[in-house]
């Protein structure tokens, strides 16, 4: 059933955010530390576990992937509620600090992004990556290939 997928996603998110809050308290930070990242790892673990134990039921997949396909529209809604006026009117300090910080970080991505890259593995999983891209772009078609088996054995 589709709701099982949505519920799985919800449970992973709730547990992840809860652990993130606990980490925040433990580190005495007034913020959630990596809750969403932890939730993502839980969901990855759940997928691997399900794939190994008799495959992913269609309903679960549908329930999770629906929300992945809604990702871009949600990001657009997120963009539509940023405080753009304040950012634009911030004055020279804001402008220079913002542009400077982003430029330096872009440069750093260029420098460290290719450290220890394994092109053979990338080529192996390329169809899987493409499939994921299509799902997240919201343009996955029913006839497109399913999850390959290779992802399950990797964990």
């Amino acid at each position, binding site marked *: 059933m589709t709701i099982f997928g949505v519920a799985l996603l919800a449970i992973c998110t709730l547990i992840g955010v809860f652990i993130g809050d606990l980490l925040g308290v433990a580190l005495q930070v007034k913020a959630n*530390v990596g809750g969403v990242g932890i939730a993502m790892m839980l969901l990855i673990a759940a997928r691997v576990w399900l794939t190994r134990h008799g495959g992913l039921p269609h309903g679960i997949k549908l329930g999770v992937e629906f929300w992945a396909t809604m990702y871009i529209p*949600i990001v657009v809604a997120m963009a539509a509620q940023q405080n*753009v006026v304040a950012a634009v009117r911030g004055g020279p300090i804001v402008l220079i600090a913002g542009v400077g910080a982003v430029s330096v970080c872009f440069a750093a991505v260029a420098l460290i992004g290719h450290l220890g890259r394994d092109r053979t593995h990338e080529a192996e999983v390329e169809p899987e990556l493409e499939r994921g891209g299509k799902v997240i772009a919201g343009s996955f078609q029913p006839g497109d290939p399913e999850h390959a088996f290779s992802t399950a054995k990797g964990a």
Partner: protein
Amino acid sequence: MLHMIEHVFIEQSFVAAFAVVGAVMWISLAISKRFTAGRVHGSAIAIVMGLALAYAGGLVTGGQKGVADIPVFAGIGLMGGAMLRDFAIVATAFEVDVVEARKAGLLGVLSLGLGTILPFIVGIVVALAFGYTDAVSVTTIGAGAITYIVGPVTGAALGADSAVMAMSIATGVLKAIIVMVGTPFVARMIGLDNPRSAMAFGGLMGTVSGVAGGLAATDPKLVPYGALTATFHTGIGCLVGPSILYLGTRALLG
């Protein structure tokens, strides 16, 4: 008549948000196909349109939440709010290649460290150049260059002036916007085309909204990898901002 339509939009605000965002996506895809022959991603155009709407909304209402401050568009606030954004980000993890993500783990940690320190240094240099000399203000502005959440959290912890706080938040928001809009343009130059560099990108850029938007506009398949590291960034920034970074800055300024 118009009043009744308005009433429906307000009563059904969340449903209305789907219709509005759907319309924005549809127009953006049409623009992408017809005027750029698909070279500029439809989602990139949609994000820019979202930001333009946010600017218009901010001008009209004088509020801080862009178009979501207009009552008929209030549902957009829920649809694009932190709750559903995080929910959708977690869902994208379903498409992650486990081996690739695990191999890039160390790179992610390295990029998180750099992604906290580099923007902070840029922020404090700019603050110093503009004549700020007290450690609290300088640290708060530097922290804003990390993300727009780290800035106010650090400023509040240190008791910074409210004008400095506002500047710090604005710097973080501007950073997020530049990352959203600018990433597709520099993606090829900085080698952002594979899961590893996406994980480095997430840790270095940090700002979850910026990374979420920037990668969506560049290549959707990279989204979960960038998000995986980016979501740790704000927490780490809030941890070191009011502590190590403040003490370091204070020592530096004497």
